[in-house]
């Protein structure tokens, strides 16, 4: 895991008893962390057993694989599964693509002051919560007389009638992607800037001598240097595609469920918006999600080890 470990001499070990004694203070240091993790991460893992139970109010009884049979036959679940993949992956690809473009062209900016200014501005929305961003854009996109977007478009004569953007099945996803672009793309460039600052300037000078144009230098020097980072970013995020919850939850509504319901919101609705929820069933949905997520995570880890020689976990 660490460089120190690999370079440490092999024959350094003192006897175990001595080391235990020497490090006794550290075990005490780790104790709070150990207990905290035990309670908030490991204890809930025991609850996974409810996947095999029917759990309504106080009535808990074993039903074997019943929940999974029900789950796989549920159309609503498969729709949410499909939406999760589509929404997460499109969002990931779109945000990464635009972030790379911004990073490359901002890197070409001659004035350092202007570059710093743009960076400061585009990082800003990342520090606003999803709840806030959703609130802002819901107000802007509203059909009321103070709706920024609709009224502006009307006054410019582009549209005649107000459009209910967030309640339209065809427009919800594009709007969702745009709002997410606004919020996260700027922050997504941070990691690419880190890579760009590591490119040897001699490469560009060599390009100048060979008479390369700006665009040629971008194509043959900058882009190849970024390619590894791009792959890493994609892999890291691919492992988490099923986890999407808050970004969707703050923007979706009952009228666009068909195109917006993801696994986590499905679990939420089935548990907290149902009169008598079956905790067993929703735990089973969660377990299915965790297992697929687990496979994705391990797959990404292997891919990452292949590509950059170090895992993600």
């Amino acid at each position, binding site marked *: 895991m*660490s460089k*120190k470990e690999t370079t440490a001499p092999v024959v350094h*070990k003192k006897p*175990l008893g001595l080391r235990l004694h020497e490090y006794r*203070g*550290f*075990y005490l*240091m*780790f104790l*709070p*962390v*150990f207990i*905290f*993790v035990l*309670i*908030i*991460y490991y204890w*809930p*893992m025991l*609850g*996974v057993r*409810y996947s095999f139970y029917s759990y309504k109010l106080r009535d808990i009884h074993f039903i074997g694989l019943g929940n999974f049979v029900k789950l796989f036959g549920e159309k609503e679940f498969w729709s949410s599964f499909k939406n999760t993949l589509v929404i997460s992956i499109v969002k990931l690809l779109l945000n990464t693509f635009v972030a790379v473009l*911004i990073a490359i062209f901002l890197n*070409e*900016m*001659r004035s350092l002051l202007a570059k710093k*200014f*743009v960076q*400061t*501005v585009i*990082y800003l*929305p990342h*520090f606003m*919560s999803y*709840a*806030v961003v959703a*609130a*802002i*854009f*819901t*107000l802007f996109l509203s059909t009321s007389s103070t709706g*920024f977007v609709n*009224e502006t478009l009307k006054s410019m004569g582009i549209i005649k009638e107000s459009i209910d953007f967030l309640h339209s099945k065809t427009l919800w996803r594009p709007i969702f992607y745009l709002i997410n672009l606004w919020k996260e793309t*700027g*922050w997504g460039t941070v*990691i690419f800037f*880190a890579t760009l600052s590591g490119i040897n300037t001699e490469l560009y*000078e060599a390009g100048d001598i060979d008479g390369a144009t*700006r665009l040629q230098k971008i194509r043959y020097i900058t882009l190849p240097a970024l390619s590894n980072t791009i792959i890493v970013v994609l892999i*890291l995020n691919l492992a988490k595609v099923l986890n999407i919850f*808050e970004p969707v939850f*703050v923007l979706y509504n009952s009228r666009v469920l068909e195109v917006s319901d993801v696994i986590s919101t499905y679990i939420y609705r089935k548990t907290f918006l149902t009169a008598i929820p079956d905790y067993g069933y*929703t*735990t089973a949905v969660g*377990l299915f*999600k965790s297992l697929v997520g*687990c496979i994705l*995570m391990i797959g990404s880890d292997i891919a990452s080890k292949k590509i*950059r020689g170090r895992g993600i*976990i």
Partner: protein
Amino acid sequence: MGRKRKITLFDIINYIVFAILSLIIIIPIWKVVVDSFNAVGVYKFQLWPSDPTLAGYQTIIHTAKLARPFINSVVTTIVGTLIGLIMATLGGYVLCQNDMPGRSIFSYYLLFTMIFSGGMIPEYLVMKQLGLVDNMWILVVKHGMNVYNLVLMKNFFEGIPISLYEAAELDGCSPMKIFTSVVLPLSKAALASVGLMFAVTIWNDYSTVQIYITNPTQVNFQYQLRVMIMDGDTPTTAYKVSQNTLYYASIVCAILPFMVAYPFLQKYFVTGVNAGAVKE
């Protein structure tokens, strides 16, 4: 640098594109701020409020339904950040001790939680048993322990030159003494960035409150804001204030702490990400 300094067409287009991009980010934020001071709701983008008022902010301060969640947010963020930092520092430092028996077991113990989780419902049932449903301290419990941030701290600690540890050891410092008088003072920047990450997460958390809390005295500001704007649950107030003004003023309050701190602390925000992602 040997690059030519001539302004080309490419440069001009580049400047224009980034000017537009910056405006796309700034205009919505600017409009929110201006409209929070505007007595009447207008759809137009204004550079300055046409009918200035402070009623929106006064309403928030004097309406318990809004002021209380704001205080809850402040308290949970401060406490959660402190606990989070303590956990990340303790755990991170222990994981640095390569000779410590059992160290790798501890690290697998932590890393496993990043691969597999019980899921939303088992977590909810556990928190219910712990009495954390309808209790704002759920925010501290949920975010106080963050394995990712712990690993970040560990990476920072490993960046401290080994010679410093050795010098302290030669001076007869115990491992604990090294921690408190060598490692911690050198990690101020790291503590700042990791602390900021905790603070942003806790302050901005909305979904935890949505899942766990229904009692209006326990909710945080993000939740209250959302309920007010999306569900139209506007609190009745003694103030004459237009709905729009109140909405936008609330949004400003929700983003204010980090918007104010951000320009000064930007480098700490950014180092946190880079240390975690591109440690090669």
